[in-house]
């Protein structure tokens, strides 16, 4: 309270800028949750951010050592150089990234925010290693969360970009627990100043936090990565909020906490879509050894292939075709070709809809973003419940590079790691055509029995090439 009054008396304009920033963040998040206002909401939040940043640069005052008069910030050269470098790199990276690589990019930017929080804590500690316990607690917490978020995000980025493989470390949970205990004990030592004059403690503690971040994400399977990114996103929010405590800065506080709580809710929504608990995601490794073993144990039946020509005929004479896109579509960059196929089919009087599973791809809503890029009309994208309702009247289901989201094991095999996850019930349709590159199991590493079911035919090949071939065939009919 006192701090705010102090800020208000010396700096009413800055406080107003911060208030403006906080309000735009709330408005922005609110508008981001509606399709019509989303883009504007993003821009409003960005405007608020700019006001808060420049307000800080020009209006912020701090007391230097002792009781001196508050002075403004200096080192403008450094600040502006940093801002310019960050803006140029950030804009270039964000403009250049492929739509398919979006999740990695978000993870990377999130890691940068975590690293920023980590560095702030590090500098503040170096400036005042003997600060009162309250301040040290804030520094230490900001540092742990920021570091874990940074290290974890980098690993998540590496996994999504295919640079880091899933790896289960034997006894990993015990190791993680020991590290966690180590972090807490070192934190207590640092905060309580039990060993004054040993900054090495703080650095050991920083290293442990980074190691924890790495080991925390390492064993989590690829299919769960969206949940992890969302969780790390809310971590960084909380780390930013600790910065708000540190500087009594209301806009950092509101911005950070808003993202922290909103991110947590989003994480839970994602878990719900997969019918898994957060605990399960964090502890159980999805693509781990257990899942592979149960998959192999099952007898591999025979699957049948379908020719390009037969597939085209089947679809051309259908009343309704439902396309179910998955990560395979994203990898093949086939969203435009897919839209083209949809138009060709519609010219022939076939109704085409898309069945969108909430966690298809690598991120919730990934498929929506991808298909929107190809100008597929919004109304054609059916959410899972609607898609399942319409499945009965559908003649052909075309699965493009999706796997786990149509795996019947989720419904009828209690031993399956994805048991209980709501799926698109494609077997209610008359025919199922599955386009895949090979018989390899999906991202979660689970065998899919759907491919061996009587209604299913396989159409192997790269999604884009297959779609192009289908379009050619269709035009000849």
């Amino acid at each position, binding site marked *: 309270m*006192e701090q705010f009054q102090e800020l208000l008396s010396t700096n009413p304009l800055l406080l107003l800028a911060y208030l403006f*920033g906080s309000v735009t963040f709330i408005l*922005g*998040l609110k508008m*981001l*949750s509606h*399709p019509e206002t*989303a883009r504007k909401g*993003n*821009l409003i*939040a960005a405007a608020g*951010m700019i006001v808060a940043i420049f307000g*800080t*640069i020009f209006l912020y005052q*701090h007391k230097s050592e002792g009781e001196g008069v508050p002075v403004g*910030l*200096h*080192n403008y050269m*450094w*600040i502006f150089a*940093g801002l310019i470098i*960050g803006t140029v*790199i*950030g*804009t270039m*990276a*964000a*403009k250049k990234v492929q739509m398919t690589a*979006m*999740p990695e990019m978000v993870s990377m*930017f999130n890691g*940068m*925010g975590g*690293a920023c929080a980590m*560095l*702030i804590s590090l*500098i*503040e500690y*170096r400036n005042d290693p003997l600060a009162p316990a*309250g301040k040290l607690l804030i520094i230490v917490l900001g540092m742990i969360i920021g570091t874990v978020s940074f290290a974890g995000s980098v690993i998540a980025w590496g996994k999504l970009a295919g640079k880091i493989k899933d790896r289960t470390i034997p006894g990993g949970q015990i190791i993680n627990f020991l590290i966690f205990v180590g972090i807490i004990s070192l934190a207590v030592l640092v905060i309580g100043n039990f060993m004054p004059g040993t900054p090495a403690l703080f650095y050991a503690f920083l290293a442990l936090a980074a190691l924890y971040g790495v080991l925390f994400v390492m064993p989590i399977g690829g299919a769960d990565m969206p949940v992890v990114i969302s969780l790390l996103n809310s971590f*960084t*929010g909380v780390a930013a909020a600790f*910065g708000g405590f540190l*500087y009594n*800065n209301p806009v*950092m506080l509101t*911005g950070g*906490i*808003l993202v*922290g*709580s*909103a*991110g947590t809710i*989003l994480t839970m*929504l994602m878990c719900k879509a997969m019918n898994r608990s957060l605990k399960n995601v964090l502890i159980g490794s999805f693509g781990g050894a257990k899942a592979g073993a149960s998959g192999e144990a099952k007898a591999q039946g025979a699957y049948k292939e379908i020719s390009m020509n037969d597939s085209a005929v089947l679809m051309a004479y259908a009343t309704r075709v439902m396309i179910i896109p998955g990560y395979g579509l994203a990898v093949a960059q086939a969203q435009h070709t897919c839209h083209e196929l949809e138009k060709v089919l519609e010219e022939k009087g076939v109704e085409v809809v898309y069945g969108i599973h909430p966690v298809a791809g690598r*991120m919730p*809503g990934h498929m*929506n973003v991808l298909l*929107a890029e190809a100008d597929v009309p*919004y109304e054609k994208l059916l959410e899972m419940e609607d898609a399942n309702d319409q499945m009965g009247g559908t003649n052909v289901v075309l699965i493009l590079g999706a796997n786990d989201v149509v795996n019947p094991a989720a419904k009828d095999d209690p031993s399956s790691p994805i048991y209980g996850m709501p799926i698109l019930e494609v077997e209610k349709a008359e025919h199922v055509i599955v386009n895949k590159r090979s018989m390899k199991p999906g991202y979660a590493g689970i065998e899919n029995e759907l491919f061996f079911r009587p209604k299913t035919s396989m159409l192997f090949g790269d999604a884009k090439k297959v779609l192009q071939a289908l379009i050619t065939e269709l035009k000849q009919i």
Partner: protein
Amino acid sequence: MEQVTTFFNGNYHLITIVILSIFLGIEVISRVPAVLHTPLMSGANAIHGVVIIGAIIVMGSAHDGDYISLVLGFLAVILGTLNVVGGFVVTDRMLEMFGKKKKPSAK
């Protein structure tokens, strides 16, 4: 214990803001169509880039001779800016596509 009470008294307003913000965040997010999950995550990601303000404060109050602080602060400003700018630009790119196909359907 005494320290805890002093901390609480001194930060009463901040704590109120935190608690209210938690509820606000939950309220604002709980009604989001699945379509918007990715842009929303990305937008929220940009907003926590507000941590840049801390980096600016650290940088701007570092002493001239303290090169370690200057270098680390400089790095923090760059990383924070990356988070903010990259986050907002990526989100805008995603949402740009939603806008394109929204128009014909509205008319």
